[in-house]
């Protein structure tokens, strides 16, 4: 910032105009990292909301242009650290599709399993932080207790708890074992036994209900205008899921539902995510029951890729929605451009529309319920 530029713009107002700016973030307890909302307010009502992003920009796309395809692998988990596995494996799948690399059958299934575990993990974290935003601190800890199990399970196979770097072009780094299967099955049983508790403690609670019902409504029209995807879109009644619309990585084999709600409010988003966890459990169960033998590691470690020249687009369903990779290849081992179309970027853009006329507390509930991960938005 220059000295001449102030971080806070001056609000021009006539005498008697009671509007004022409230600067929420980038350091604020419930701005999920470094989101900044510049709110024009009158009293406790928000007249206009302008999200300001970019505080966590790490130039992933620029890095991609300076690296070989394989060297971009560790970056992918870090784009969205909460569903790093999905991003990491999604990137591998994109490159595999682009270059026609074969993946061992077992690796395909294991990828589905770890992806879904990662999705549950992400949803559990969202659940906790959402409640934290609403002022309920205890469910956060219960969720973390459950989430810890997943992290331990994934830690056992990948060696890392957050930024996995588990995928490789044409496979995975390590195979899963019996213990993994047992732990995953036990975890699913445990999670299912916890759902009634979560419902009674959180969903049925009248305070939670009051805070969420009819708050932050996204209509299907708003979703379409802003390109909102993921649970937020499904909570508005549109059953769009990349896993179903453009099946990838073997998802077409599994029987799962796409939970939808029609209300489009915070409560609907909450319910959609809770149902999605159950659906993820179902996918994991099916995948575990039908786990092929073989090796998961790539047949041959690809160090130098020779991708076909041209544009490629590959999308996966990340925990927060449609994660697309637009890859422009010039035939060399370095991508000419990678554009990461991250879901929260579009979801957050809709905030300025959704938050108009709501109260400060609703801002928090809505930002919490759309589940943003700022590093993913800022890339």
């Amino acid at each position, binding site marked *: 910032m220059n000295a001449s530029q102030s971080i806070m713009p001056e609000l021009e107002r006539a005498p008697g105009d009671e509007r004022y700016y409230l600067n929420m973030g980038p350091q604020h307890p419930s701005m999920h990292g470094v989101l900044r909302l510049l709110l024009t307010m009158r009293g406790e009502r928000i007249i206009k909301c302008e999200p300001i992003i970019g505080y966590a920009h790490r130039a992933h796309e620029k890095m991609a242009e300076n*690296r*070989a395809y*394989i*060297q*971009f*692998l*560790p*970056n992918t988990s*870090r784009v969205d650290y909460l569903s790093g596995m999905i991003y990491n494996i999604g990137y591998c799948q994109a490159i595999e599709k682009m270059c026609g690399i074969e993946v061992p059958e077992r690796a395909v299934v294991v990828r589905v399993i770890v992806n879904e575990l990662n999705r549950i993990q992400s949803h559990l974290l969202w659940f906790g932080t959402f409640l934290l935003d609403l002022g309920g601190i*205890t469910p956060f800890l*219960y969720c973390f*207790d459950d989430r*810890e199990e997943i992290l*331990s399970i994934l*830690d*056992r*196979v*990948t*060696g*890392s708890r957050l*930024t996995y*770097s588990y995928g*490789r072009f044409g496979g995975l*780094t*390590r195979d899963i074992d019996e213990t993994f299967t047992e732990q995953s099955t036990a975890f699913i049983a445990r999670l299912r036994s916890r759902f009634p*508790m979560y419902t*009674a*403690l959180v969903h*049925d*609670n*009248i*305070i939670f*209900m009051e805070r969420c019902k009819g708050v932050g409504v996204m209509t299907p029209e708003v979703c379409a205008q802003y390109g909102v995807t993921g649970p937020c879109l499904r909570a508005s009644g549109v059953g769009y899921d990349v896993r179903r619309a453009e099946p990838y990585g073997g998802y077409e084999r599994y029987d799962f539902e796409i939970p939808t709600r029609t209300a489009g409010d915070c409560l609907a988003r909450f319910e959609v995510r809770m149902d999605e966890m159950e659906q993820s459990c179902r996918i994991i169960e099916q995948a575990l029951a039908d786990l092929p033998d073989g090796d998961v*590691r790539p*047949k*041959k*470690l690809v*160090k130098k890729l020779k991708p076909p020249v041209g544009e490629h687009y590959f999308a996966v369903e990340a925990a927060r929605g449609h994660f697309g990779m637009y890859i422009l290849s010039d035939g060399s081992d370095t991508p000419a451009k990678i554009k990461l179309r991250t879901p929260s970027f579009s979801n957050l853009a809709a905030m300025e529309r959704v938050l108009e006329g709501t109260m400060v507390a609703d801002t928090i509930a809505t930002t919490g319920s759309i589940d943003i991960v700022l590093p993913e938005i800022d890339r």
Partner: protein
Amino acid sequence: MSYLSTIFSGFWTLVTGMKITAREMPRKAVTLTYPHKKPELSDAYRSAIQLVRFEETDSHDCVACMQCVKICPSFCITIEGEKIEGIKRQRANRVEMDFALCSLCGLCIDVCPTDTLEYSKIYDEAGGNRGWTYDLLAEFREGEEAWIERMRAIEAKEAAEKEAKRKAIAEAKAAAATKKPAEEAAPKPPDEGAAGKPAPPPASDLPEDKPEEPES
């Protein structure tokens, strides 16, 4: 009436919530009281890389091929190698790794042709600055002289074996040539290794200029 029933049912949900937290209250804490109790690290645990100490040579086997340096996305590995008199292979005399840059992706371990890199299990160290460098050779410097001796012996043995093998192959080839001249080019593993092709991670089919596996 609905006013009262809403109040009552709402109040009841609150009571339910309190019952749940009351039920959780006597449960045992899940906290791991670090540092009083240490976490159990998984086998796959990834920390800073270190060099493997092979049983046979009682030392690492870094040949300074620079594969890891080239693939590292974070440019955090520095390796220098030298040729030692009387030993065929190169020997690394400087292997350093800046852990402040490392992103623990494991690509270096995947590409290592001699499988001499592995993850360490260090988890309780912290760097206070940029340039948090590990000298991976630190624990190997002591036995360097002894290693040279051992390596010479191993290489001599290896050369002898190779010679024997080559003879066997040549004989087999000669025998085959008399039968099927067309299939002449098929079995020649030594050439493939010499071409410096990237080695796949399974240790079974490594390039030929690698020493035998520790167990062999």
